[in-house]
């Protein structure tokens, strides 16, 4: 997918993951892997590794799969969530040497190697997950060697932290483009902070023409497109670091245009109206997060992938009186959904578009569409 770069070798040699706190996890890594530093996060998704690896929100992360056997069904051309592999590195218990699926077009190790993503395998991923759960996610470096090399250590020491890092601006498209047909019933501007393909697919299925714009697009530029609604996408990194976004959101809101945000988009809405965001100890990453819709009491099993959250609880968003909490996470009580008390603005922290993950929350898209239609 990455064109002309030389793929990594599929031959494996002893390799190691070194975390910021000094702990190490041994395994086997591509023989010619270069030391790679990134935030190390775990995801509990049992299916959908190809979607995870291409999800821009995982951009710049070393992803640990808690599911122990990865690669079983190979890779195909239909499931990627963006145009390239987004993760910086992968840690698994076992990488499947072979694959079997009627849609498969190739094997996972080669696909990752082609994207030069180093894979550390044969790791006690449960020990690593438990460590991240109790110590919190942190930076790590994967490299060749039984013990971390000095070069790897130096690289880790020099690496910038995730807090305060604006990863979204670069993860997003740099040019405006249109997704789907031109002559659709509705027109949405999607502000791309690292958007997943499936969000666009779903809007398209809902009868929308989607104009995807770079993250830094201003309110004026957006409104000039005369959208029926504005969508704020998911994306990687610290929401507070995207300093230009609140002004854009306020501008769009002032025009009375409906706004819908997912994940990073949701966090940005929280920040815009006075709330704050905080880095969670180990985030929510997986396809089994129970979310309660407060108005109905209904529980949705949702797909999630975020390391930051909007501060507050079921009763209120801290510092944002204009916002009302609509959803909470049943595992830890964190905020999962917001609605503006007077404006047509709402957002969810989870991923209703899933991919990978359960489809329970898909109706959120219908809700947004209903808002658009209600406004004619």
């Amino acid at each position: 997918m990455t064109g002309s770069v030389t793929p990594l070798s599929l031959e494996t040699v002893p390799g190691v993951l070194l975390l910021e706190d000094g702990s190490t996890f041994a395994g086997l890594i591509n023989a010619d892997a270069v030391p790679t530093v990134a935030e190390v996060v775990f995801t509990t998704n049992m299916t959908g590794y190809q979607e995870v690896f291409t999800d821009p929100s995982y951009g710049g992360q070393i992803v640990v799969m808690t599911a122990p056997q990865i690669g079983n069904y190979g890779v195909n051309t239909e499931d990627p969530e963006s145009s390239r592999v987004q993760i910086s590195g992968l840690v698994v218990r076992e990488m499947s040497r072979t694959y079997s699926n009627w849609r498969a077009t190739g094997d996972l190790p080669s696909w990752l190697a082609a994207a030069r993503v180093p894979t550390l395998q044969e790791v006690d991923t449960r020990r690593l997950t438990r460590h991240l759960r109790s110590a919190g996610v942190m930076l790590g470096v994967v490299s060749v060697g039984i013990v971390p090399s000095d070069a790897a250590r130096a690289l880790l020491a020099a690496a910038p932290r995730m807090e305060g890092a604006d990863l979204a601006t670069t993860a997003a498209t740099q040019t405006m483009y249109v997704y789907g047909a031109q002559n659709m019933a509705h027109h949405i501007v999607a502000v791309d902070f690292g958007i997943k393909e499936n969000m666009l697919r779903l809007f398209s299925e809902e009868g929308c023409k989607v104009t995807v714009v770079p993250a830094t697009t201003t309110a004026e530029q957006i409104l000039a497109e005369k959208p029926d609604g504005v969508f704020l996408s998911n994306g990687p990194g610290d929401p507070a670091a995207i300093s230009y976004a609140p002004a854009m959101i306020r501008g769009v809101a002032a025009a009375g245009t409906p706004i819908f945000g997912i994940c990073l988009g949701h966090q940005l809405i929280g920040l815009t109206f006075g709330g704050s965001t905080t880095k969670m100890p180990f985030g929510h990453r997986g396809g089994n997060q129970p979310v309660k819709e407060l108005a109905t009491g209904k529980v949705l099993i949702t797909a999630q992938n975020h390391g930051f959250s909007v501060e507050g609880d079921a009763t209120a968003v801290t510092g944002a009186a204009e916002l009302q909490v609509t959803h909470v996470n049943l595992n830890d009580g964190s905020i999962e959904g917001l609605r503006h008390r007077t404006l047509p603005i709402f957002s969810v922290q989870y991923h209703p578009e899933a991919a990978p993950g359960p489809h329970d929350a898909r109706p959120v898209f219908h809700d947004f569409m209903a808002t658009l239609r209600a406004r004619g």
Partner: protein
Amino acid sequence: MPKRTDLHRILIIGSGPIVIGQAAEFDYSGTQATKALREEGYEVILVNSNPATIMTDPEMADRTYIEPVTPEYVEKVIAAERPDALLPTMGGQTALNIALALYDTGVLDKYGVQLIGANARAIRVAEDRQEFAAAMARIGLSVAQGGFAHNWDEAHALLESTGYPAIIRPSFTLGGSGGGVAYNREEYETIVRRGLDESPTSQVLIERSLLGWKEFELEVMRDCADNVVIVCTIENLDPMGVHTGDSITVAPAMTLTDREYQTMRDAACAIIREIGVEAGGCNIQFTVSPVTGDMLVIEMNPRVSRSSALASKATGFPIARIGAKLAVGMTLDEIPNDITKTTPASFEPVLDYVVVKCPRFAFEKFPAADPRLTTQMKSVGESMAIGRTFKEALQKGLRALETGRAGWEIGSRLIDDRLEDATLETLRGMLRQPTPERIFQVKRAMQLGMSDAELFETSAIDPWFLAQMRELLEAEVAYAALTDVTPAHLRGMKRMGFSDRQLGRLRNETEFDVRGRRHALGIRPSYKMVDTCAGEFPSETPYLYSSYDEESEAPRSGRKSVIILGSGPNRIGQGVEFDYCCVRAAIALREQGYETIMINSNPETVSTDFDVSDKLYFEPLTLEDVLEIVEREQPMGVIVQLGGQTPLKLTRGLEAAGVKILGTSPDAIDVAEDRRRFDAIARSIGIQQPENGTATSVGEAVRIADRIGYPVLVRPSYVLGGRAMQVVYDDVSLRDYFETAARVSEERPVLIDRFLEDAFEADVDAISDGVMVVIGGVMQHIEDAGIHSGDSACVLPPVRIPAEYQDVMRAHTVALAKALGVVGLINVQYAIRDGEVYVLEVNPRASRTIPFVSKAIGVPLASVAARVMCGETLAEIGFTEEIVPPFFSVKEAVFPFKKFREFDPILGPEMRSTGEVMGISESFGLAFAKAQLAAENALPRSGAIFVTVNDRDKASVAPIVKRFHAMGFRIIATSGTAAFLAGQGIPAEKVFKVHEGRPHALDLIVNREVVLLINTPMGKHAQRDDYTIRQAAIANRVAYTTTLSAASAACDAIEALATSQRVDVRPLQDWHAMLAAGRALPA
């Protein structure tokens, strides 16, 4: 939503006796449901005829009815208890069917009983193929189209749903002969007619071609607020065509992309909503084309099932427990996750391990039965194993089966893998027709160079699974060829699940060599927790499995601990009774403050419920696996005498490794098995045994038999369930026996006893603390000597054994327990003939009858035994005197003959029953009648009785027939028997034998013109007739007895039924209150 307050008393129906397809999983689900509902403050009333269950222990439910699980008896219970609601989803198909019958007949309405968990409509729509297909069509899903045809008209009708091309598969023909693909009407008719002709059962399956499609199961739960969660996905290694209970299955699904899985998940959510399971769980099976990805719905069961038990164990999400709470109106988010304790049950478990379930079969017990696996379930038990990879879990699962394979190993002989020769041609043929050995045939095929592509083409096992197996084989070959085994090599092999024994065999070493080396290198398993959340949240519940990884969890607590070894996969001869004993021990010792640690590999059972013991190790019960845990836990000792033969077989190895065995010493266990040592003890305390000897060769056996005289009873030592036990009448048969039994006896000698024909048999269970011995119960067998005690009905207290003989047996039992130094349980089997009491067998361990006796006398013997083993005295515990109940308890065995139609239902010394039922009443006759009814052998009150007995039995049958005649039954007999009866003044109508003309005996049975068959085996020559008649009785549900003693008991029972106004039901708690009242009287 909070729980319902309009309900107070809830009735749960159990599944009755263990039969193939309905086993211990329903004890697990019923027990969980009972506990869950009582926790919420409801009163629970329970009906189940199976005494060998934890759920029927008196302290589990508020009111426990050990009564036949029939609509008639459940109605009696409803009338007596007036429950507000009936929870029908915990007792398998039996409970659902009875609930539906009670609903249809208006009984539930009449008594104002609500169905909760699943309503009548949901049960019906799920059951009825047509309604189900219509329901699926409404939500845009497809079902597999087709069905069975027995004649051309039926086949023609099926064509409408399948269309062309249609696959025609005749049932029970070799290699699918007679079948084919029809592309037009002409071909269709030709193939169908040929298939019907070739099928011995005149049956063909006609369907849209799904052979080789992949099979998946989802366990789904829904609450009354319409929240739905998927608990688990299961993928079958064996593709479509093999019953899921007979398949090797894997959790989670291994080969589905997220897109495909989410499609399936969406379908599952839609199905549970459309069928209308309002608050509870269901199991949904799907099939997926490996070529196009098309998905079809196979079926859904709106209840807990064997798969839900597996899913509960595989994920740590207790489906039955949660299901019971949902049924009373609670919602998923209100129920805590019992494993993490901090998160709610409204989530979907994620696994960071792989679970493999392997079925266990009993074809060695039914040699005539067809071993091919089809859509009818034939396995009798299963093992489950957890590993970090499929490879590791498969190897653990296969060695946990305890069938002599130390992992994915081919048999030492071709025949062990059901092969006649070692050619690829034969393998190709065999791989196409699944048998229990196919998994091993795959390995042989790989060894012979068959490619994965061809393996897939012949077996339709998914290429991914084949590739995993090939990795195992490649690793094996490489390991065997190493000149030097480095620690990394050894560790690598252990990570793939190879046992020390397998590794030893690969390099001509012993298991002990490998273990010694491994330990010296510090290569030890780590233990990881099953926590429902892949480590995302801290977990409180130490439910553990081993793997060769870095980090271990749930370290030693430091408390004084006891390890209890469970009984492994259920099999004939070792079933739920032993699990019952292990669970009782865990509960009792926990109450006494010990940390209890359970090791077991059986996912169906209560013992592997994570909250029964303090720590649960879901591990194979092999010496290697057990020793590693003992080493880690450093327990005070290990209990081996409660789990049947499985732990007993490990005793020597454990002792040799320095492990403390609690209770009776391993040496005493050995004495009981060692004929020579036992003879010495028997002589010293003056106990008679049948003349006997021990043979290690055929020649020796013949000499012994000549000395003591035929008939003789032969059996290998160290077996349970009478495996390979036979009564032999002459030299030829004896030589023949050695040919076939050598395999099971291995190096063990064969025991030869004089067979006491026409003796009474009895069983005594007792308990000893090393000083005092207390009799648990004396049971008289209903069947004569020569029939395995596990297959014989029995009654406690005895009805026909004079008190003086009972006392002799008691005295002998006490003397034996003391002489052997028993600390714990002992079971002694006796025969009484011509005024002489003989000891047949002594087993210093829990017997199969312990749960039955415990329920009959109101004392949990296994609990007492566990405490005694840990040092308490019987006096301290307060069990110092035998309790002889003033009522009768009858145990009756239940057989799988209906499943194995090819098999003659004659009883013998080899045990063949799968389960048991209990009947309790103040009269023996009624207790026996209830037991017969519960065993689905309901006794008639009037009609015609067909008598056909061998010459030897003619004299003895006359008085019995006379009694039947006096009660107004018509007597029908074949010419010889009729003439004899006439001579005794009993009028009998004559009927032709099968070969004499028509209408003959078989016609009478098929037409159900007789209500009871009394038939004793005629000997070799007339066998064919005999066999056909008995088979017909089973097939046509005509009550039958094959022994005169059972016929006599049946007569007692029918007399009792005739003279009682009505048969009462009474809960166990009331029977026990009667015993307590009796005991309170001064002696």
